[in-house]
């Protein structure tokens, strides 16, 4: 007993660093109970918890993709992968209970049967170890800490035994909690802080908090197409359907603007030339061998990994296969993309492309060309450009990587349909994965935010124009859906195209010999006469006004 009391005291001391930040909440907790006892747990503030990332940093509401209206009462896929740490400041009084337990469920967990009943399914699961015993005489503020994965895990509610796993959230099984939801609808899970007696029966008044969870992102937009313009590409797509909480779209382009003059993909368009070359990434990763080998490595990993995990969500750009990631490298997404591209590997991992030398790129970009023709092509999702040419982007369609960092983004204006591709302003891996975009529900694991070209917060949007591009350079573009919980969905089937010069009206007029030059007056034969006429009229008017 003394040992347990000491632990609780330590927990309180550790948690005293909490300072209410007063941010708005989307809902407030409610008390529930029903058992005898004078114990009572309440929140002293309307904003009952703050959320910390695994590395101890507070959730960045500015750069984190979570919408502000969740702030941070909801948990999305990214929160789960980051194993959000939730701290609740609660006031406890009464002190007839033996200790406090924290449970979660979609039913009333203050009912003992839902937690510990004999011979009945347990519909609640314990999300934190017990605190206490509690021998204080005056009200005390406690700071229980729980983890998002423990709350979201859905511990087989049909079982009659719910063994508490104190280290579940940080164990190798922990990320599985992020994939338990199968539908896109939001699920409300209530977290209960329950005073219990020595027989584990609830006593007094418990405190509960509803945690909105949405771990499934909307599906990718359909039929993404590109049409070229002068230093721009116009992307159009179709909505993925009647997704209940679709709020917008994010558009990614490789290479990103901001100085890259090569990269993305290079395409061999000469039929029969055997010049199917491609490279992945932006200018910084144009070293073809590295890009190709990464694709191959990712493909090999994807072929052997059960869950398809290929990338490290925590920001390791050099490690592709990290068992701790285990994020939604979709079982279906990559093959789907490859299928649509018309390039499917055979059983031996070969794809139907010529493994030529990579020369003869018609794009003129002269960018990194690599020798391909193996399983690597599968994971790089080569896009059939027609005429035998292929195009691929490692960064957007394969085992992408997350680099922590800040990105200056320009939100697309749906009304004008014009967006300027942002320029990455920094890369600070020390901040963890906050700057990255982790994709949920399939597709690649994550995309470096520097590839984000625009975001449209309008679910009815069907097009955007990416500007600031380089003519003659191939760009791979993918579109993702974003839901109201901030989940970013899998990427669309990648498309690839080059911006091309156009003849707009003015250019055509000029090329046809038009001599109009805008505002310049003068040169005409009547100019002096016109000027004299204006002057005479002005003088006459002035003279007339002077008359009494």
């Amino acid at each position: 007993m003394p040992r347990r009391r000491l632990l609780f005291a330590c927990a309180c001391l550790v948690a005293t660093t909490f300072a209410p930040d007063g941010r708005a909440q989307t809902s407030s907790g409610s008390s529930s109970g029903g058992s005898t006892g004078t114990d009572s747990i309440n929140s002293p503030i309307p904003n009952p918890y703050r959320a910390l990332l695994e590395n101890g940093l507070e959730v960045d509401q500015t750069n984190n993709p979570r919408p502000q209206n969740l702030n941070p009462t909801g948990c999305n896929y990214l929160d789960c992968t980051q194993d959000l740490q939730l701290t609740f400041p609660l006031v406890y009084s009464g002190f007839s209970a033996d200790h406090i337990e924290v449970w979660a469920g979609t039913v009333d967990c203050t009912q003992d049967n839902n937690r510990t009943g004999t011979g009945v399914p347990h519909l609640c699961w314990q999300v934190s170890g017990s605190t206490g015993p509690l021998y204080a005489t005056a009200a005390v503020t406690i700071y229980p800490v729980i983890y998002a994965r423990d709350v979201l895990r859905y511990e087989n509610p049909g079982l009659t035994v719910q063994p508490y796993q104190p280290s579940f959230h940080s164990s190798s099984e922990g990320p599985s909690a992020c994939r338990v939801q199968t539908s896109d609808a939001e699920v409300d899970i209530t977290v209960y802080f329950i005073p219990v007696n020595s027989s584990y029966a609830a006593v007094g008044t418990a405190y509960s908090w509803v945690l909105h969870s949405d771990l499934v992102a909307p599906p990718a937009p359909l039929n993404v197409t590109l049409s070229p313009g002068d230093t721009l590409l116009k992307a159009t797509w179709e909505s993925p359907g009647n997704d209940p909480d679709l709020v917008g779209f994010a558009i990614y382009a490789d290479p990103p603007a901001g100085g890259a003059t090569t990269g993305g993909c290079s395409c061999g368009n000469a039929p029969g030339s055997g010049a199917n070359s491609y490279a992945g990434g932006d200018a910084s990763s144009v070293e073809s061998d590295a890009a190709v080998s990464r694709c191959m490595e990712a493909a090999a990993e994807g072929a052997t990994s059960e869950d398809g995990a290929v990338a490290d969500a925590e920001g390791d750009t050099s490690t592709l296969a990290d068992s701790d990631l285990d994020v939604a490298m979709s079982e279906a997404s990559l093959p789907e993309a490859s299928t649509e591209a018309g390039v499917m590997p055979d059983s031996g991992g070969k794809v139907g492309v010529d493994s030529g030398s990579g020369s003869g790129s018609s794009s003129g970009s002269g960018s990194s060309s690599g020798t391909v023709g193996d399983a690597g092509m599968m994971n790089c999702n080569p896009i059939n450009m027609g005429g035998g040419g292929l195009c691929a982007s490692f960064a957007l369609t394969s085992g992408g990587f997350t680099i922590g960092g800040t990105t200056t983004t320009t939100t697309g204006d749906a009304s004008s349909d014009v967006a300027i591709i942002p320029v990455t302003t920094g890369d600070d891996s020390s901040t963890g994965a906050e700057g990255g975009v982790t994709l949920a529900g399939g597709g690649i694991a994550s995309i470096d935010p520097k590839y984000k070209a625009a975001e449209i917060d309008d679910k009815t949007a069907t097009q955007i124009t990416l500007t600031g591009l380089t003519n003659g350079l191939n760009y791979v573009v993918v579109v993702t859906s974003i839901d109201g919980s901030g989940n970013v969905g899998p990427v669309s089937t990648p498309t690839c195209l080059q911006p091309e010069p156009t003849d707009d009206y003015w250019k055509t007029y000029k090329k046809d010999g038009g001599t109009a030059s805008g505002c310049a007056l003068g040169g005409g034969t009547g100019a002096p006469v016109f000027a004299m006429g204006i002057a005479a009229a002005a003088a006459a008017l002035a003279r007339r006004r002077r008359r009494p």
Partner: protein
Amino acid sequence: MTPRRFVAPAIGLACVLLAGSSRAQEDRGESLSAHHKSYESPQNFAIEIRLSPYLPGVDSDPSLHGCTPFTDIFGKSPSFMVGAEFDWQAVRIKHLGTIGPGVGIGTVSFSAAAPNTSANATGGCISANGSLSGEQTSLTIYPMYAVAVLRADALWKEAGVPFVPYAKLGYGSAFWQASNTLGTSKYAGSVGQGYTIGTAFAIGLSFNLNVFDDYAARNFDEGMGVNSTYLFAEWTDLNLNGLWVQSDPLRVGGTSWTFGLDWEF
């Protein structure tokens, strides 16, 4: 048909329409007519809402030597110009009507997908290769004019015939801007925006809608000060050719039929 031959049928038609409207007025009684006379508010201004299918004569530019870039890009279909005009009926000429200055402004825009750059040329003209890009190109014109307006409303005021012929003559100008998706077009150092000056001329015929509901018209006058509401049709000629002042104007003027509503107050 000589002018005299044209006028006679027009007056006949007016009389037929007038007979119908007079019969309706009789039904409302003489007292209303007297009421109308006593409550007519002063009339000094007019305002017009104008709508016209407009096609600029840009391709008539002599420097194009027969090339038709406007038609090639935007086609031959006109776009609707929306405009407004404000007139000051400064002087009333007895047994004729009013005359005074008026200013007007409008806007019309042409937009199409820009073709990809073509290496082909036909007779020295750029010929589109048929493939359209994802880029939009547009030409927007903002015509403006300052004119003297003569409205011969004596026929309505003194004889009750609900037709008012009018004419306008004065200075015309237009700001124009050629744009693409990225903004104002530029080519070889030349920016695609500017203005062109010229003359504005119009002749039209207004039909006074008061005849359909004299009672409502009087209430409109008493409540808002609007003396008459007209439906008009007008032939407009914006001859924006630089007026011998601009050496290389973009010929964004054109002729068009304009329709609209006119309120005198």
